[in-house]
């Protein structure tokens, strides 16, 4: 189970609304390489992990991704909060407003709703861990696109933090893959 703590993992305090940037960042909430996909992927895959180290790392990275989902939701909310509808129209963010208002909804930046088809969870841990290595790189690339588009330090700073976490998770999944391969190589697995 989880116990909620009333703070974000990294400080977020965006003073200047920017609905265009909110729409861009939204893909990391409910898009194909986003934090919801990441957390559901790892928290589902953990049930078929074969060793104590790999059960732990899937559980714990999956949990951290939930904290990242909250950070992204907080950023989208603060960037959209109280912006007048006419201003949203001028900035071409009005199609999102027409569907959800200024709410945070799990979709990508084009409004395509989240789907579990973005993720895989198989019984085979080698297949899962290789998917996760790719997923972390795709998320890292997405954060780099977002950082290039952002100009407010209040936005860039948490995006840089999230980008760095993808790099660390990639490292840990690489170690998990090595551990599983060693176990499978050292005894008859099937």
């Amino acid at each position, binding site marked *: 189970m989880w*116990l*909620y*703590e*009333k*703070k*974000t*993992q*990294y*400080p*977020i*305090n965006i003073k200047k609304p920017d609905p265009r940037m909110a729409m861009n960042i939204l893909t990391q909430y409910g898009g194909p390489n986003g934090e919801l996909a990441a957390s559901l992927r790892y928290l589902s895959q953990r049930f078929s992990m074969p060793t104590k*180290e790999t059960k*732990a*790392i899937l559980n*714990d*990275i999956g949990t*951290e991704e939930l904290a990242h989902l*909250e*950070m992204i*939701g*907080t950023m989208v*909310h*603060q960037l959209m*909060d109280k912006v007048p509808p006419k201003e949203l129209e001028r900035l071409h963010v009005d199609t999102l407003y027409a569907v959800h208002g200024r709410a945070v909804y799990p979709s990508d930046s084009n409004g395509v709703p989240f789907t579990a088809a973005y993720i895989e969870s198989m019984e085979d841990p080698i297949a899962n861990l290789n998917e996760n290595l790719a997923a972390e790189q795709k998320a890292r690339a997405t954060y780099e696109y977002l950082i290039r588009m952002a100009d407010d330090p209040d936005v860039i700073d948490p995006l840089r933090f999230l980008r760095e976490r993808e790099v*660390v*998770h990639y490292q*840990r999944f690489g*170690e*998990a893959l090595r*551990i599983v391969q060693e176990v499978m190589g050292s005894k008859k697995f099937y």
Partner: protein
Amino acid sequence: MDEQTTLLEQIMAYDFALYDLQLFLDTHPSDANALRDYKIALDQAENLRRQYQSKFGPLTPRYLPNTTCWQWINDPWPWDPKGGMSNVAL
């Protein structure tokens, strides 16, 4: 920065160090240096969390201040303006 924000940022920093070490220890469970660092950061984080909660209210529902009303619901929540920086306004 006010005292509440400063204290919460210190907790965030130690909690981050703890979480990063946790992931490292998951795949390196016998690393004595990481285990030692985890213990140091854990003591600091627990001490700061005690200070924060006694002054500014609960970070989790498991901290129950000696008052007659349920303070957990107090604004701001982490997504509120400045909420990611400071939480319970008393």
